[in-house]
């Protein structure tokens, strides 16, 4: 029987929201949905899927490519080939999908944010969303994808009945990659998720020497300063100030983005802000699609000008 295999992402006991995008995509394909999940007590709406297969394994071992391929082999033995295996677009989802693709020699498209069912066309971001590629599979066969969070979750709907559920026999855990521990972020820094007004800087401000000027402006505006990943990577600002998927998700009254392009991983962390103002010298910058107000200008010049006015 044809089915979509949704590999769920459970992190610290939580069924991640982005699993709904995988479920939604399966519905677009009009496939029965089998959810693969580590055995445990999670809050999940089981009615979204037709079948549940549980694996007797810790979440940290489940989200490990070496164990995942063993689990997938078991599922395939039991249920036959799925038409598609769907992973989330996340740190682990990305890792698992590519490893499964290489192991089972199945086609892979990652970060899929759109699908045209009639034509079988997948939409995939290039150059941080400045353009998109329309991809097709060269064969009909099973394929693997990761789906961009937020893209398909509206297609996740409850089925009429509760799913059938079964548990896989124990799988052999690999010794070649093992989990040691989780590491929390240092929490002594300021909490940017509590700020009402974030002045956020990106790579476009040029270099570290410019930061002082932004700190000055932030002080004048009573804003808290935050940044995109490159700014944190280069240590212009401390890590807890990072906005985005691998940093913080923020929702201030105003998010003032200066010199930030608007890559998906950044947008995911700030798109729900009440008011977004973006300054970028590139009129094509994707951030303008999410901003309420946009300014095509040199961020540093705008900063200096604002400072002059504020100092009155």
């Amino acid at each position, binding site marked *: 029987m044809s089915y979509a295999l949704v590999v769920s992402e459970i992190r610290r006991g939580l069924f991640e929201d982005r699993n709904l995008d995988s479920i939604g995509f399966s519905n677009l394909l009009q496939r029965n949905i089998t959810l693969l999940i580590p055995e445990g007590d999670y809050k999940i709406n089981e009615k979204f899927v037709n079948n549940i297969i549980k694996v007797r394994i810790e979440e940290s071992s489940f989200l490990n490519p070496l164990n995942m391929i063993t689990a997938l082999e078991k599922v395939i033995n039991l249920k036959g080939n799925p038409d598609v295996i769907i992973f989330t677009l996340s740190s682990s989802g990305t890792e698992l999908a590519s490893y499964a693709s290489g192991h089972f020699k199945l086609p892979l498209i990652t970060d899929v944010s759109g699908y045209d069912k009639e034509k079988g066309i997948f939409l995939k971001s*290039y150059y941080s969303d400045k353009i998109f590629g329309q991809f097709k599979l060269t064969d009909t066969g099973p394929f693997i994808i990761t789906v961009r969070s937020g893209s398909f979750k509206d297609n996740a709907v409850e089925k009429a009945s509760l799913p059938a559920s079964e548990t896989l026999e124990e799988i052999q855990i690999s010794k070649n990659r093992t989990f040691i521990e989780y590491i929390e972020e240092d929490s002594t820094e300021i909490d940017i998720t509590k700020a009402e007004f974030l002045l956020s800087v990106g790579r476009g401000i040029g270099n570290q020497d410019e930061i002082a000027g932004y700190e000055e402006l932030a002080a004048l505006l009573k804003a808290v300063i935050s940044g995109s990943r490159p700014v944190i990577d280069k240590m212009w600002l401390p890590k807890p100030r990072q906005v985005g998927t691998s940093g913080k998700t923020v929702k201030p009254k105003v998010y003032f983005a200066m010199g930030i392009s608007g890559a998906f991983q950044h947008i995911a962390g700030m798109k729900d802000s009440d008011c977004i103002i973006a300054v970028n010298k590139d009129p094509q910058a994707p951030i303008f699609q999410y901003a309420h107000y946009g300014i095509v200008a040199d961020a540093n010049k705008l900063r200096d000008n604002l400072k002059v006015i504020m100092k009155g």
Partner: protein
Amino acid sequence: MNILVFAKRVAAAQEEELRIVNDGQGVDLAKVPFKMNDWDNYAIEEAVRIVEKTGGAVTAVSIGDAESDDVLRRAIAMGAKDGFLIETSETIHDPNERASVISDFLKKESTPFDAIFTGVQSEDDQFASVGGILAARLGLPYASMIIGIDSFENGQVTARRELEGGLRERIKLTLPCVLSIQSGINEPRYVSIMGVRKASKVDRKIFPMNNYQENFSNMIEIIKWVYPEKKAGATMLTGELSNICKDVLGILKENGVCQ
């Protein structure tokens, strides 16, 4: 320790206009500058630092046209011993094809290694997949989003992986393995033009890509390039900079964050 690092030459498109041409069949990059993929820059730095401690050598490998030699020279200037170019004039989009070429290359040229590093993702295609596919094809343990390496010895690596929201996990892998390196793991060293020029004196080897393509046929293909679907979009503030600034202050006030 011998580490192979894969490095790609990519368009630095962040500040450039990307124009779709030929009815969606191409993207005009003629005026766009090129550079080493940012994530690969971090991967090379990390490999060089490890080898500085453990001994052994770093070899940088790139798949691309003759211009990709730039990336190899830069890697050598950073401390890599050798540079290999798997040369092709095609742009290969399918990450499975790139990984298949690499695994064929490693087998045919019997290139020895204790570890393979890639970047987490290419800036242009963002597949974030070549490392994982390659690892599976080679039957090696794999981890991506590596943001710290604690130890690299006695046949084992202990490393930190980045998850979401600032959370990380510490894991252990046996060597040989494939690791995809996340940006911010280190501070890549500065490379001067002089350094790159000096690196030019080190021989780079060239291997024609079609030697490693027999065992593979494309699994996915690009049909067309398109611009992003327009969302509601921003109200653009235009005019004199000083007037724009006044508008901004008005918006801040309206949203209750500034007097």
